[in-house]
């Protein structure tokens, strides 16, 4: 913009004279103490500085998970989650487990950096800490609490929107068997059946894939691996149960 041309004789032309002072202000800004949160300008400066620092540092690629590293982490179930939008992978531990109506359970998985995924019988029902989260999901419970989605029916995702509210997103879903598949997860082989769920709604189509232990085994089995849609902001998540 040739803004200076119009306001040539005006104040904007003198702004460069303020630059040294502005630099000093930026250098000094952001000191505070006590219980109160810092002033708006301090928070802005801090955010800009940390953003610049993060960009300078770059995003390190996470070390690839191996069975040996996994065993070193200790006992307990671990879930691997990859967000397709960003390519970021995280390893989650069980944060809480709740018995559910119909004999199933809701499991809350948590990352070290405070992101949680809530799964009902292996089906994603809520996320937290990602931004634009799925706050809750209305869904048909699968019969007799077996893992995986119901054969069909309506599902409503309640998506956190930018005006501090929720936007319901109704999807009509139907699941179909693709067939048996054997997965290899970090050197272990799991026989599964592949279930594909197709949901329509909100002007789009969502495809969720589930690989469910088959035969179920002594514990009733689990959704061993899945690719599920976490709403329009979170996008698709790829989940793998690494250990039981």
């Amino acid at each position, binding site marked *: 913009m040739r803004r200076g041309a119009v306001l040539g004789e005006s104040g904007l032309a003198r702004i460069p004279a303020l630059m040294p002072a502005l630099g000093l202000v930026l250098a000094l800004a952001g000191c505070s103490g006590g219980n109160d949160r810092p002033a708006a300008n301090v928070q802005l400066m801090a955010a800009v500085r940390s953003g610049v620092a993060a960009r300078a540092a770059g995003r390190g690629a996470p070390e690839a998970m191996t069975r040996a590293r996994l065993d070193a982490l200790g006992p307990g179930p671990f879930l691997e989650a990859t967000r397709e939008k960003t390519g970021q992978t995280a390893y989650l531990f069980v944060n809480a487990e709740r018995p559910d109506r119909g004999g199933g359970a809701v499991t809350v998985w948590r990352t070290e950096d405070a992101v949680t995924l809530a799964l009902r019988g292996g089906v994603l029902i809520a996320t937290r800490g990602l931004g634009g989260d799925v706050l809750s999901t209305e869904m048909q419970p699968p019969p007799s609490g077996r893992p995986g989605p119901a054969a069909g029916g309506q599902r409503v995702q309640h998506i956190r929107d930018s005006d501090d509210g929720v936007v319901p997103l109704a999807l009509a879903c139907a699941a179909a068997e693709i067939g048996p598949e054997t997965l290899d997860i970090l050197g272990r082989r799991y026989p599964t059946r592949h279930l594909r769920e197709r949901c329509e709604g909100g002007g789009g189509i969502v*495809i969720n894939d589930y690989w469910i232990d088959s035969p179920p085994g002594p514990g009733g089995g689990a959704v061993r691996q899945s690719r599920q849609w976490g709403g329009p902001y979170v996008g698709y998540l790829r989940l793998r149960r690494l250990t039981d």
Partner: protein
Amino acid sequence: MSHCKRSTGAATGLPAGALLAVLLAAFPAAPLMAQSSAQSSAQSSAQPQGRDSEPAFARQAGAIADLAPSFTPPLPPSLNFYGSPGLMDMPSGETLPDGQFTTGIGYFGGQLRYTMSFQALPWVSASFRYNGIRDLNLYGFSTYYDRSFDARFRLHRETRRWPEITLGLQDFAGTGIYSAEYIAATKNFVTPGWGRAALPGRLKLTAGLGWGRLGSYNSIGSTFGARPPYDPSGTGGQLAFDQWFRGPVAPFGGIEWQPDDRWGLKLEYSSDAYVTETRTSNVFERRSPFNFGIEYQATPRTRLGAYYMYGSEFGLTAQIQLNPKNTPAKLRVPAPQPVHVRPPAAGNPVVWGTEWADYPDAPVRLSGQLSALLADEGVVVESLRVDAHTAELRIRNLQYHSHALAIGRAARAMARALPASVETFHIVPLSGGMALSRATLRRSDLEALEFDGDAAAALLAVTGFSDAPPLSPAATPMPGLYPDKSWSLAPYFQPSYFDPSVPFRLDVGLDLRGTWRPAPGWIVSGLLRQRLAGNVKDGRASTSVLPHVRTDAVKYAQYGTTMQNLFTAYQWRPGRDLYGRVTLGYLEQMYAGLSGELLWKPVSSRLALGVEANYVRQRDYDQRLDLLDYSVVTGHVSAYYEFGPGLIAQVDVGRYLAGDVGATFAIDRVFDNGWSVGGFFTKTDVSAAEFGEGSFDKGIRFSIPLTWFLGTESRQSVGTTIRPITRDGGARLNVPGRLYGQVRDAHYKALSGQWARAWE
């Protein structure tokens, strides 16, 4: 004192236009925030897609890119040189999405127009414009600067057959150089795909009739007699009813073709003859009524355009469009700990026992545990009252712009720390030690509803909101909270707008703020300011015939080291639904004295009533401890009413700083996420001639929460009040810590709107 969003005075705040244009436009293009970078870059690389409400456009786009539903809003209408939806110099019949907040900068032929617009309601928008015309050489200025207001009303929504029709009033209250009225209609058509992407494009046909400036070229007739001429000697500011839709009327029209979601081509026929600029004066030469333009969507929020205007001039625009309902960075809050579920009462008599309540140290122990759990969450525990079945927790929310979220986090902490027999949770958010409201939840509901399909609505249905009762003598205050000290050193930017010779001046420097809270409700606070550079001090001296209650700003700006304020305040609850405040000291840059306020606001009421009385003396220009001779008793009776889609109307009747008596009318659109945009005007017994330029006091104000563009939680916001001109009539005192903003934030309307966040 809490960060009262509505208390922004004219003096404080950031240089609005400059800050917004640079900061917000830059964010999507060059993400600076570590946490938001993923989303932002995804947004800027993704083609803006239609939502389900959009026709075939969206679905076909989805077939190629991503099939999943998208909440990305469709591309909004592009803006013209006046910052309104339109072609180049002509408006269109289009309407911006509800809440859209736009900044348009346009330049051609020595004319710069800078316009801020707000789509206040789905069918009403308002704009404020500042413009400069170089070499006009009229009315005693070589470069002529002016301010103007527009309003647009959608008369008809676009349907399959009918176009969108809009009625517009341009520059309806200024001195009138841009004054025009129009009715414009625009119809959208889908065009076949073009280029690599092969997505369908859009063609928009616009036709309209203009009066005033827009009826000055090739008019086809005249309506309602002759139009009174533009009178530059007037003080302006009055609604120009006598001009509207009078005089010659001329047709205009044009075509906009958007072959894809990035590019746009424009062609228009202009009905503006530019009489003043090209005949009375010689700003540019108008050779043709046809204008041509090409536009490019640089980021999802920024559109750039280049034009060939009137057969002689090149022009440029930058259009920045924000929507409060669409953040540049999705807010990320660290996930809460899941609600701790108690074992069943049957078979667990020890866990469910109530003997613990008999131990005298139980409240101290439990409040210590709660405090430790909530410290990481940015919530300070002020007190706990607990018995075998009920607990009341009072909290100070430092971090979350939504009190609902702080209440949710407090409830989770209570479910974790309190013994199983405690079933009823009362949570009371405080502001400056003053209890704002009380949310009452059943613990069983928390346990049962956390993974409910519609958890937010279900929890809202079983949560009670009521007036916070006085603090029980049985409550245990958290030890070590008082006295409390805080300080901060922060940069400040103090702009000064619209001096005809230098339209934008700026001071920058450092603010050192110290706050001491000796006991709940009490505050002692001071702000020292050191200017490092700036030119506000070179402004115009006052020529006001009224007492110089606000127009001596330049005299105050002569001093580099100043004390902006130093005061002590107490706020408390005088009774049910009542809130009180008393403030004594150096209240603001220009006044010192005593201020008292009383507010009546039931928790679930849309109506609030307040009364404020102040006795103040003007401070010496050096802003140290001395006072000048001028003193005044000023005060108002206020009514606030919330209605419709987040509108707050406010009327204040009373005596103003210059001793004038009158009333201020204000209306603000407040979004659940904390955005607010509004306008106000004041009429007092000061005549338009005594008042001077502008005739009466008026302005616009906006406030944007930091959370909205940082993507992390904060209770701070940036914003400002912009007056076309600051005079001495209808001027009000800026008292820190006014009550309504603090109180409304934690009342039913605000909490229920954000209640989904209680689960976050």
